[in-house]
């Protein structure tokens, strides 16, 4: 290994060749402030345009200051990270950024969670010496994401996520000079673009320029409406992240407190999306076995691989980008929508109320779910199966607004019948989880044998694309997993080219899966947080008494009482959907 010797703030340090000044300094505990820079270790995600110029340091013998995040170290470098020249430059640059930024921190959605605000504080900015005109852009509201572009500081993180990671290519820098800003082409609305609403731009935005549509007000209003029965479902990934909003260690499971909080907020029934995840496995797993069976019987018309369809951003992605393949994904609705559909039929019947008087709210780690629940095919007489989807962050806000001391809440249990779930439902929250849950059920349904083991380590991990072969009683089933739409694109292109080796592929839009969703507590570039959430999800699974969807007694009951069997006509009507070509 080639090494480089250098001196940072009078301390000698030896690092690998190719290390940046930023990394070298951090190795000896010197944290040079950064703003646009962001790196998610192990996920292959890095943003270093060298644009904000906050991380500039003085390098002896160099004409100008060097951006630490994107300058490689060189032998014998002598670096001063806090010379008067560097500090003055850093503070002046910060003042310039603030001079073109609205100062409405007190009422900004990101207040307290804003990297820019933190940085201004850390740099001790008390006065802006260079005041002047501020840039103004049209605010853009879509079904899921709000762009308040005046707050954009051109860090380009969203652009990197949208283009490099997700390959959606909606956001890019437009205009020149002072008018430069990140926006869709021709500054059109997100709503008119091919945006998937994955929300990864929101997840990484250091300011309040990109936020989710705030539905907390609507939920509060409905909760206080005496004519409505308001029920709630909560997605698996929420329980592994909500605690962070209350200063709990990342990866703390807060399932019981979450239920308690929802009950205190006034929801009439607190249910679990995990139940619907089990239902999804019944439908999707059956569909997989059907297609597989026909394929093995020599049917050439059968479409393989089957692709999972739980993720609304992923669905919108292929509707825009691969409309010719819209008959390949499973037709199974996402767990959120299966839940809504069952709640407003089966459960409303049980309560003896009209669907219009039943309100379904979902708590999601996702901003695309807001868009999904508004899709026309998920409405009956204009009444949506799911009325509102709020993010983990919005739920935290509701809890805070309602004076609930989250940390001291007791652990409570979900209500029934839509609150019982298995470990298979829980792992839907992480990349690899849906397909592992499907394998657990499909294997047993196909082989009629009990699985010798339930933990499929070969399906787990954080690699962008993973492959595994599972032996289904002598038949090798090839499974692919992709998280991040850029990775999904690679697998789709393989299918398009007729080169795909897989029978089934799981796709989740967000890096890490739902645990890294656009609606989760902000990770501020710390990938460790995602890994801890993933660990928590698998921990929850391992503690569950039942870990296979087809063994969920309430699922069995639902089929007995209401649906008949998986893929029945009723199931088809309530639990499956169709996809549309959105290129037209």
């Amino acid at each position: 290994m080639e090494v480089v010797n250098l001196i940072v703030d009078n301390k000698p340090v030896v690092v690998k060749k190719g290390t940046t000044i930023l990394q070298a300094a951090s190795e000896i505990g010197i944290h040079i402030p950064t703003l646009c820079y962001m790196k998610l270790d192990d996920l292959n995600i890095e943003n270093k345009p060298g644009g904000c110029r906050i991380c500039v340091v003085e390098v002896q013998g160099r004409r100008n200051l060097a951006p630490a995040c994107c300058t490689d170290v060189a032998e014998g470098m002598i670096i001063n990270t806090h010379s008067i020249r560097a500090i003055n430059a850093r503070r002046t640059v910060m003042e310039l950024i603030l001079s073109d930024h609205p100062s409405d921190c007190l009422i900004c959605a990101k207040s307290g969670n804003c990297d820019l605000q933190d940085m201004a504080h850390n740099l001790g900015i008390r006065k802006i010496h260079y005041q002047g005109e501020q840039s103004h852009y049209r605010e853009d509201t879509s079904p899921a994401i709000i762009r308040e572009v005046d707050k954009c500081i051109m860090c380009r993180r969203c652009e990197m996520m949208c283009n490099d990671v997700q390959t959606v290519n909606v956001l890019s820098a437009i205009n020149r000079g002072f008018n430069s800003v990140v926006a869709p082409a021709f500054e059109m609305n997100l709503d008119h673009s091919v945006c998937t609403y994955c929300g990864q731009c929101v997840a990484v935005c250091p300011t309040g320029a990109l936020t989710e549509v705030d539905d907390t007000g609507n939920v509060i209003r409905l909760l206080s409406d005496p004519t409505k029965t308001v029920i709630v479902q909560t997605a698996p990934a929420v329980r592994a992240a909500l605690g962070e909003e209350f200063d709990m260690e990342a990866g703390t499971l807060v399932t019981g407190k979450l239920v308690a909080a929802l009950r205190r907020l006034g929801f009439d029934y607190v249910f679990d999306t995990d139940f619907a995840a089990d239902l999804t496995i019944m439908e999707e797993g059956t569909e997989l076995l059907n297609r597989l069976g026909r394929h093995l019987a020599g049917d050439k018309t059968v479409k393989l691989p089957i692709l999972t369809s739980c993720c609304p951003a992923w669905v919108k992605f292929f509707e825009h980008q691969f409309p010719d393949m819209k008959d390949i994904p499973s037709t199974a609705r996402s767990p959120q929508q299966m839940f809504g559909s069952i709640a407003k039929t089966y459960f409303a019947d049980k309560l003896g109320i009209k669907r219009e008087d039943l309100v379904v709210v979902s708590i999601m780690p996702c901003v695309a779910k807001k868009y999904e629940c508004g899709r026309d095919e998920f409405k009956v007489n204009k009444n949506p199966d799911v009325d509102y989807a709020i993010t983990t962050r919005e739920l935290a806000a509701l809890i805070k607004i309602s004076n609930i001391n989250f940390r001291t809440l007791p652990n409570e249990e979900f209500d029934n019948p839509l609150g019982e779930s298995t470990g298979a439902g829980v792992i839907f929250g992480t990349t690899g989880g849906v397909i592992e849950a499907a394998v657990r059920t499909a294997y047993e349904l196909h082989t009629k044998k009990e699985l010798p083991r339930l933990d499929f380590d070969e399906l787990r991990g954080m690699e962008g694309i993973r492959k595994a072969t599972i032996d289904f009683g002598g038949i090798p089933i090839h499974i692919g997993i992709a998280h991040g739409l850029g990775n999904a694109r690679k697998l789709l292109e393989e299918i398009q080219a007729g080169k795909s080796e897989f029978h089934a592929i799981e796709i989740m839009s967000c890096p890490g899966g739902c645990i890294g969703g656009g609606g989760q507590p902000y990770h501020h570039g710390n990938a460790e947080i995602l890994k801890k959430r993933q660990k928590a999800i698998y921990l929850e699974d391992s503690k569950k008494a039942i870990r296979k969807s087809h063994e969920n007694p309430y699922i069995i009951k639902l089929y007995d009482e209401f649906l008949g069997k998986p893929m029945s006509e009723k199931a088809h009507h309530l639990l499956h959907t169709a996809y549309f070509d959105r290129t037209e």
Partner: protein
Amino acid sequence: MTDYRMHILICGGTGCKASESSDIKEKLNYFLNEYDLEDEIQVVLTGCFGFCEKGPIVKILPDNTFYIEVKPSDAEDIVKEHIIKGRPVHRLLYKNPKNDFKVTSATNIDFYKKQIRIALRNCGFINPENIEEYIGRDGYQALGKCLTELTRTQVINEVKESGLRGRGGGGFPTGLKWEITRNVEADQKYVVCNADEGDPGAFMDRSILEGDPHSVIEAMAICGYCIGSDSGLVYIRAEYPLAIERLKTAIKQAEEYGLLGEDILGTGFNFKIELRYGAGAFVCGEETALIHSMEGLRGEPTVKPPFPSVSGYRGKPTNVNNVETFANIPVIINKGASWFNKIGTEKSKGTKVFALAGKINNVGLIEVPMGTTLREVIYDIGGGIKDGKGFKSVQTGGPSGGCLTKKFLDTPIDYENLIAAGSMMGSGGMIVMDEDDCMVSIAKFYLEFTLEESCGKCSPCRIGNKRLHEILCKITEGKGELEDIDRLKMLSDVIKDTSLCGLGQSSPNPVLSTILNFEDEYLAHVNDGKCPAGQCKSLMRYDIIEELCTGCTLCFRNCPVGAITGERRVPHYIDQSICIKCGVCFEKCKFNAITLT
């Protein structure tokens, strides 16, 4: 050119073409036909002669007669008088402003006397659309020599030894750049010609491409041979249609002659050239931004290293040189490094092309040896300041250069001296200012340009330049405070120190150099509310001198905003709150009754 008795060369550069030089050619051919001379006399549309101030230019060979400001209607006289009767058309000759004598030959015109034309050697001599004329002037000889007689290392050493440095502004040694690119191992490399000339008023590269496209093509092929590339790309602004057209024609001809394409001159060397069009963004002259633009990405710079020599176009090693740099190469190979490096100063060899503009008598394109003084350029070649006004400043280096004063007039021009003086070489813009120019406004003008042209990627350039501009506006509007001058200096220093690319690192130069050299003008604006040059409208007022006003109502009737009141035969009055300082009253008044203070 041998079959003809005489040649009539007409400037076919963009400027002269706009002044109907194509019509002149047509008319000349018409009259030559009339008199059955078409087989004896050839009319050639050439590239730029450089003396744009007096265009369109027509030159007769072999006697070297130089006609200026020619109109299509002059064609008949040129044919009848000069060609047939053998006597020059006197009214079209250049008049030496020093003694009012008419000058017949181009070589006796002061504008050309101190010039040495290397990069521009063929501009104004050959028909750029005919490869044979280029070949007739030693064209493609250098390429042949390189491919058949010299090794790659020998050619690179020759270029290194010549001392040639990048003419686009950076001044990086060309040979060294080639060597670095050559030494990187890769399956594919690229030669890129940067023809994204963007400095306001500059047209060096355009003129070379319009007047002598083959010199660039030949040099690119030589570069390709040296670094091991078979693929050249010219990044050219789409606003240069004539240059594009001539370049395309030249590439096609070179291909037809086997000087581009597969197995050039039977040596097994392949080289092709393609064009890539820029949309006119100034920042795309920065090489990383240029490469991103060629890749179809947003034209914005990225941090270096990696330098394009290591990772450039499509991630491959890419050698980027400017048009003028390339145009020097064939001459260096033909005449040798030792010939070339005798011209110029110790660290800056050869010549430099400048686009001379502003308040100067001879606006145009010039090429002078490095080491020529600013005084020689401005007074001897440029013919001094227009209308006999006093010299105030000269701005070199384009929008990010500095404004130099009288005390630098005897500075020999080279890379180091200009930087030491607080300016820079840049790509060759040179704008002369006279006593009527307000230096605060000049700084503001340049900043307006960089403000528009900043890509917006890094904060100091995007926002800092905006703030600088706002402070300058404040000062020119008479609202400035003394602290503003300090704030300009401090902010300028930070912008230079922290910006990502050369644009931001130099954009405050006009501000800093004008404060340094003309601080009294800033102080007059700020402290006294006066613009010494009388340019800042907000600091001026027009008043009517009662004693001189006859009440003729002429000013009243001409004022576009109704700021003037008064009865007939009674002195008038200007309402300062309405006046927009357009100066119409001042011009119209026949009694000198209006003052400007």
